[in-house]
C-alpha cells in the first residue's frame, strides 16, 4: 500500500502541472501585461496595442488579454480589429458581460447593419446554457462529476451497510447523468469556439461575388468590421454567409479569421 500511495502522489502532482502549465517565455509576461495596462490607462493606446500584441505573439492566451487588446484598437478607432479581438475573447469566455457589451459598442460603430435571423427558442436556450461558463468551465465540471460518479460507485460496490449502498447507487446515477450533460455542453462549447469558422472583413469596402471568381457577378457590398461565417474554401476564395443569411464568395485577402 505504501508504494501505491507514493504513486498516487506523483500522479496528482503531474496532473496539477499539466493543467496549469505556467507561462514561461517572454521575459516576464506578468510584467509585460502590467506595463501594457499602464500604457492603456495613460491613454497611450498605440503603445498598448503593441505591448498586448507582443504578449499574444509570444503564444499567450486569455480572454482578458484579447479583450484588453480589443479595447486598445477601439480607442484608436480601428473598429474592425477591435471586433476581431472582442470576438476572439468571447470565444474563450462566451458569457462575459463586459466582452459582450464592448463588442456591441464596437459593432455599432461600423458601417454595415445586418438584421440577424432570430434563432429558434430552444437553440437560444441551449446557447444560453452553453455560454453559462467560461470556455473550460463545462470541461472542469465533467471531470468533477465523473469523479463523484466513481466515488458513489465505490460506495455502492464496497459499502457494507445497506444505507451506504443505497445512497451510493442513487447518487451514482445522478452524477453519471450530470457527467453526460456537462460533457455534451463542453463538447458543444468547444465546437462553437473552435469548430466555427468565422471571419471579420478587413477591407474598407469589398464586393461579395456570386462565385469564387473575380469576374463573377457582384452580389452585395460589405464594409470593414462585419462578421461573416466561412462555410467553404476553394483556393483563396471563401464561401461566406452574413448574419441575415445571404451567401457569397470573398477572397482571403479581404478578411481575417477569428
Amino acid at each position, binding site marked *: 500500500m505504501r508504494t*501505491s500511495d507514493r504513486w*498516487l502522489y506523483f*500522479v496528482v502532482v*503531474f*496532473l496539477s502541472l*499539466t*493543467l*496549469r*502549465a*505556467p*507561462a*514561461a*517565455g517572454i521575459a516576464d*509576461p*506578468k510584467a509585460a*501585461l502590467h506595463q501594457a*495596462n499602464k500604457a*492603456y*490607462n495613460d491613454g497611450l493606446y498605440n503603445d498598448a496595442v503593441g505591448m498586448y500584441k507582443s*504578449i499574444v505573439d509570444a*503564444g*499567450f*492566451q*486569455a480572454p*482578458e*488579454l484579447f*479583450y*484588453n487588446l480589443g*479595447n*486598445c484598437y*477601439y*480607442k484608436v478607432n480601428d473598429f474592425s480589429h477591435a471586433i476581431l479581438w472582442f470576438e476572439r475573447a468571447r470565444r*474563450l469566455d462566451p458569457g462575459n458581460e*463586459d466582452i459582450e*457589451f*464592448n463588442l456591441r*459598442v*464596437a459593432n455599432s460603430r461600423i458601417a454595415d447593419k445586418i438584421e440577424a435571423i432570430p434563432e429558434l427558442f430552444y437553440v437560444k436556450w441551449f446557447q444560453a446554457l452553453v455560454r453559462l461558463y467560461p*470556455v*473550460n468551465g*463545462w*470541461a*472542469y465540471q*465533467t*471531470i468533477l462529476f*465523473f*469523479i463523484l460518479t*466513481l466515488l458513489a*460507485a*465505490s460506495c455502492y*460496490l*464496497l459499502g457494507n451497510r445497506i444505507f451506504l449502498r443505497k445512497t451510493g447507487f442513487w447518487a451514482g446515477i445522478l452524477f453519471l447523468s450530470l457527467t453526460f450533460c456537462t460533457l455534451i455542453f*463542453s*463538447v458543444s462549447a*468547444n465546437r462553437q469556439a*473552435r469548430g466555427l469558422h468565422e471571419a471579420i472583413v478587413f477591407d474598407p469596402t469589398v464586393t461579395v461575388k456570386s462565385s469564387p471568381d473575380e469576374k463573377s457577378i457582384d452580389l452585395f457590398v460589405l464594409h470593414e468590421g462585419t462578421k461573416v461565417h466561412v462555410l467553404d474554401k476553394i483556393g483563396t476564395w471563401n464561401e461566406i454567409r452574413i448574419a441575415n443569411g445571404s451567401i457569397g464568395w470573398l477572397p482571403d485577402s479581404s478578411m481575417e479569421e477569428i
Partner: protein
Amino acid sequence: MKNGPIILAIFGICAFSTFAQQAHFTVSTKPVVAVGETFALTYTLDAQGVNFREPRITGFEVLSGPNTSTSSSIRSINGRTSISITYTYTYLLQALKEGSFEITPASVVVDGKSYQSDPALIKVVAGAGTTSQPQGRPGQQGQQVPEEGRSGGDDVFLKAFASDDNPFQGEGITVTYKIFTKVRLGNLSISKNPSFQGFWSQNLLKEGDQGAQYNQTINGEAYTVAELRKMVLYPLKSGKLTINPMEMECIAQVKRQSRPGTGDPFFDDFFNNSFFSQSYATVEKTLKSNPLSIDVKPLPLEGRPADFSGSVGSFTFRSELDKTTVKANEPVTLKFIVAGTGNIQLIDRLDVSFPPDFETYDPKVVSDFNTTTSGISGMQSFEYLIIPRKPGKFSIKPVPFTYFDLGRKTYITLLSPEYTLNVEKGTGATTGMTYSGVGKEEIQYIGSDIRHIETRPFLLYRGSMWFLGTVSYFLWMGVPLVLFFIVAILFKKQAARRRDTLLMKNRRATRVARKRLRKAEHFLKQGDKDPFYEEISQALWGYMGDKFGISNAELSLDSVREALQEKNLDTGITGSFIAALQETEFTRFAPGDKILRMEEVYTNAMELIAKTERSLK
C-alpha cells in the same frame, strides 16, 4: 448699400448747380441709351433730405444703387457766406431691351415737406455702342471724347494694395483701395464691389469717415491719392485666393488736348496751344482696380491641438467666477475673457463643460474692438449664467483656449483655472424634493464608451487554453477510473480473504468449543471451580464469535443476541443461550457456592451448543 457714402467732396465741385433757400429735387440721366449700355440715373437734392422714396425702375437692370453721396461747398460772395449741400442718389442702370421707358418720380422729404422729382424718360435703342458712351452731345466732338477718356487712363486709376500677399490662414491683412488722379473727379460711385470670397472682412474706415488723402508723385507726375476703402481681411481657408477687382464710375473733367482738325494749320495750331487747351470735357469714366491674388499659407498641422478652432493672433485668456459658495438655485456667473490682437471676432464659443446637474444658458457674448491698421484688437467675453440645482461640491474643469501665435509660429493653449463651486442647501422648496421619493431623477447618460480593460490579474495560458480533449483532460478522467478499479479489486480481494477465515472459524467452532468443554470436564472432576468456569465461558463466547464472525472486540451480549436473531434461530435457544452466558459470567465473578451447580452448567452448555449446531444446519 453700406459703402454708399464714399465722399469725395474735395474733388467734387458738383456738376449740378445749387440754389439757395428753396430745395430742388431733380433727376438727370441720358435720354437715349443703347441696349446693354450702363449709365447713371442721378437724383440731386440741394438740401438735407430724408426718407428718399425710390422710383420704380422697369426695363432696366439696377446694377447698384441708390448710392448716396453728399457734397457741400462754402461760398463767399461779397462777404456773404453761404453753405450749400448737395445730396445725390445715384443708380447705375443697364438697358436691357429697346423701347421707351418711363421711370416713376422719386420723392424725398426736406424739413417736413415732400419733394417729388420729374419722371425720367429714357429711350433705348439697338446699339452697336459699347459701354462708356460719352456723355457729350452728339456732334463733331463725339468721336474724340472717348479717345481722350482712354488717353486719360493714366490720369485716373484705381489700385488695390494688400499689406501681405502670403499670410497664414487666419492672419489679418490690410487691403486698401486707392484712387490716383490728376484731374478733378465727381460723382464717384462704386458700381461693383470687390468680392472677398474666402475672407472674413472688417471695414477699417467707419461710415462717414474719410480715408487719408495725400499727394504722391509717380513717374514725375503728381497725383492726388485718396484711400477709398480700407479693410482688414482674415483668410478663412488656405490656398490661392483671388479678390475680384472693384469697379467705379465717376465723372472726370478731362483736359481737352486735341480739337477736331479743321484743316487750317493756323487755326489748329492756335487752338492747340497751351492757353486754349485749358478747356475741359466732362467724361464719364469706369475705373477698374487690379485683382489681388493672395496665397494663404495653411497653419502647420504639426503640434495642432485637437481643440484648435482657428484663432490666430496673440491673445490673453482669463476667467472670473463671481462666487465660489452659493446656495442651490442661486445663479452664478462665470466669465471668460479673450483679449488681444487677431481674428478675435471669430471666436464664437468656448469648450466649457459644466457638471451635468447644472442648469446653464447660452453665454452672453460681449465684444469690444478697435480696428486699427494692424488688425483688430480688443476683447471678447463669454458670460455664462449657471444655476446649480443640487447641493454639493462641484468642480468646473479648466477651459482651454488654443490659438496660433503668429510671432512664435506655434500653437499656444491657455487654460483657465479649475473652479470648485460649493453649493449649499438652498432655502427653496425644490431642493427638499430631492429627498422625497417623488423628486427622484432618472440617471442621465451623458456619453457612451466601451468598458474599461481588465486590470485585475488573470491567468495567462501558454499556447492553447483549451482543456477539453487535451492529454491532461484524459488523465483527469482516466486516472480516477484506474484508481477506482484498483481500489475496488483490492477491496474485493480482502473481503474474499476475510470470508475464508470466517468460514474456517465457523467450521472449527464446534470443535474448539468441545475441546474447551472437555477441559472444563477435567476441572470439574478435580473440583477446580475457577478454571472450570473460565473454560465454560470461553467455550460459549468463542463458539458464538467463531460461528457468527464476530470479532473479540465486538463480542457482547447485545451483538450475540443480534447475530442469533439475524439467523432466525428458535427464540427459546436464543433466550437460553443468552441466559447461559449471563449465568456463567455471574457465577464466575460472584462470591458464594460455585461447586453445586458446576455439573448442571456443564451439561447445559453441552446441550446448548449441540442444539444451536442442529438448528443452524
